[in-house]
């Protein structure tokens, strides 16, 4: 009652002040607490702000790059500090492993019949999250450079290497290939892409036993190394920021990059017209004669905490549902992400992600122990790329590092 009054007064005050803030919205909530934790970028900020417009709720949001270090601890207490965590397909695993999020089936039956089924993330038959945006890595290329050497945008990594060779030999660019190859998470992601592109399986079926020390693993590593030969020698320090900067400086003509970053590459800021007008996107490439794209699909979605009252869970569900409703879309938010929302109109920059979806790219694996393998990959590939050890040794190191971690976590004996 008290909250209701305060919210109404607040809404009134805002109205009379005549600010641009929108009206408190009726999301069907009668009362309850909504507290969001999630990563900090424009699309998620917009969703959180929209959810916060709901009537009759006590609202808080903690959007920070450190969200993954905070969300489990903040949801383990009872009642949990956060009633919802916004996560991606890699990070939902930690929440499921620690058993801090609740199935949403009852709430969907009651309030969520209109949420499209494809947005529902079901794990073992239970809906655990609602996805609202998609992302993927795919080809970004310079149209003018490719025209100069007379080739089509590459569809495979082998074609990309051939094009890179021509660009270098014709003296157009010294290091025409870019990529987020910074040791750690980024480099591991590139291996995951490449290994899946070769049709590799990370584990022995149905177990947590890793098995990447095989021909496909070696082939994936060798392809990564071939790419680095056409990259700036500092590639091991290049995260997405540095790679984008190389692109905007006009030093790079071909790269595999996140769809969510292409908008900034194609706008007029940070580079010359020659670069941004010729920046084009295409779907992810295949490798080694395989048919699976060497890339992964990602979604971002929201969950509801387990350790909260039913009232808060219901309020959170309704507020978050409103947060990703078509009401979210306007001129400003439209370009912030590849939304899975009715009424979303994709722009040219988003074609790469749509192509990735159309090509049935593999989603990033949602396995309880995938994070451990990702860390092990990020730590042990750089030595191979620098020529300090063989591909087999690097893969053996990765398997050993993963096995030690998985044994500690109880996934392996």
């Amino acid at each position, binding site marked *: 009652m008290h909250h209701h009054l305060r919210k109404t007064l607040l809404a009134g005050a805002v109205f009379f002040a005549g600010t641009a803030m929108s009206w408190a919205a009726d999301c069907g909530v009668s009362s309850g607490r909504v507290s969001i934790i999630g990563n900090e970028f424009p699309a998620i900020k917009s969703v959180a702000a929209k959810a916060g417009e709901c009537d009759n709720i006590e609202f808080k949001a903690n959007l920070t790059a450190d969200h993954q270090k905070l969300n489990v601890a903040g949801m383990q207490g009872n009642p949990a500090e956060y009633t919802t965590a916004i996560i991606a397909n890699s990070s939902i*695993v930690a929440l499921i492993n620690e*058993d801090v999020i609740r199935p949403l089936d009852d709430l969907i039956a009651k309030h969520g019949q209109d949420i499209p089924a494809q947005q529902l993330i079901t794990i073992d038959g239970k809906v655990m999250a609602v996805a609202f945006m998609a992302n993927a890595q795919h080809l970004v290329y310079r149209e003018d450079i490719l025209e100069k050497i007379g080739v089509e945008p590459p569809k495979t990594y082998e074609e990309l290497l051939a094009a890179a060779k021509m660009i270098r030999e014709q003296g157009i660019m010294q290091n025409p290939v870019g990529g987020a190859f*910074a040791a750690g998470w980024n480099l591991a992601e590139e291996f995951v892409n490449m290994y899946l592109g070769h049709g590799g399986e990370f584990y022995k079926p149905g177990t947590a036993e890793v098995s990447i020390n095989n021909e496909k693993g070696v082939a994936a590593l060798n392809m990564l190394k071939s790419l680095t030969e056409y990259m700036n020698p500092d590639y*091991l320090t*290049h995260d997405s920021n540095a790679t984008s900067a190389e692109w905007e400086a006009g030093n790079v003509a071909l790269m595999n990059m996140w769809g969510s970053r292409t908008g900034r590459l194609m706008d007029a800021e940070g580079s010359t017209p020659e670069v941004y007008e010729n920046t084009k996107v295409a779907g992810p490439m295949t490798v080694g004669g395989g048919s699976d794209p060497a890339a992964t699909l990602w979604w971002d979605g929201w969950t509801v905490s387990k350790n909260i009252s039913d009232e808060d869970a219901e309020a959170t569900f309704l507020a978050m549902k409103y947060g990703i409703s078509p009401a979210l879309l306007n001129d400003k938010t439209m370009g912030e992400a590849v939304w899975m929302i009715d009424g979303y109109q994709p722009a040219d920059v988003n074609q790469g992600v749509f192509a990735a979806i159309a090509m049935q790219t593999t989603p990033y694996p949602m396995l309880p122990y995938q994070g451990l393998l*990702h*860390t092990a990959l990020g*730590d042990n590939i750089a030595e191979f790329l620098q020529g300090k050890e063989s591909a087999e040794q690097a893969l053996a190191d990765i398997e050993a590092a993963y096995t030690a971690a998985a044994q500690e976590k109880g996934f392996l004996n």
Partner: protein
Amino acid sequence: MAFGQSFVGDVKHKSFFLFILPSMAAMVLFIALPILSVLVQSVFAPHEQVIVEVKNCGPFGCTESTMIDQEATEKLRAEQPLGRFVGAEIYMNRGHLAFGEIGQAWSASEGLGDFVSRVLNLPFYGALAFTLTYTAVVTPLAIAFGFVIAIAVNSLPRLFRGPMIFFSLLPMIVTPLIGALILFWMIDARGILGSAIQSIAGDPNLSLKASTPLTWIMLMVYGIWSSAPFAFVVYYAGLQTVPQDTLESAMIDGATRWERIRYVVLPHLLPLTTFMALIKIMDNFRVFEPIVSFSAAAHAQSLSYFIFQDLGGETRLLSSAAATSVLTIAGVAILLSPVLVRNWRDFNRMRA
């Protein structure tokens, strides 16, 4: 407000306790207790997880996958909330001391060089190699550099000293988050410093970021640059308390400036030097921020970096992070022991 009359020359137990209480309380609550829990954490690991095969569906279709069977593990968790006791297992595994792997390396290696390279391939020992080199180089150079700056600034006319103190502190003031980012860009092969270094070296393809030795040097130069101000300020403050009459009489005796520094100033600053050596050895052994800011993980790692990774990954390795923390404390204790033994002797001399 009487604490009771003490014996002259020493602090009585009760007043000592009252003076130290606030400080101790803060440290026990926020450091000692967490260290205890870390010790416990490092000998327990999560329960064995029951894995079940499931079908997951999402916006991109359905896949066969696995998940943890929560009901099956819940009972185990309720019985033993700390997890399963593993003793020193975590300390011994490949991510830490890796005794088993060292044994294998010894029997498999073809010579001492091969053995060393196999050992350095293990994460803990690779990190130790960098960390110890870093500590051994940066600590003395930063302190010495700071001392010379202090002497030099102290010789400036009074008017210039204030601004100079500020400018000397700049490497410490600018948050490393941004400071390192900007420096990192400046030393890029096409940045202002990187280009300067290339033209000095006469090699247009030189890149500090691409080679391991150059990355190490870069990190060490940054370490000295960013911690010299600390030594400078401490020495500068210490110089203000150098006994004037001793200096005067030394001058009357015809001591040169160097002799005055050698026989009056340096001994006076010795306690401060010990203090700084302790702090800097510890900080350098735990080097972390530059590795992250300079994206140097491909070339250099440290124990603190491992902790950061264990805690920051998608799946957190709490026991591993705890064990690495304990090993860090142990490493610091070993490194500091010579200084501490000296301190103990000084302390006993003071008592005498």
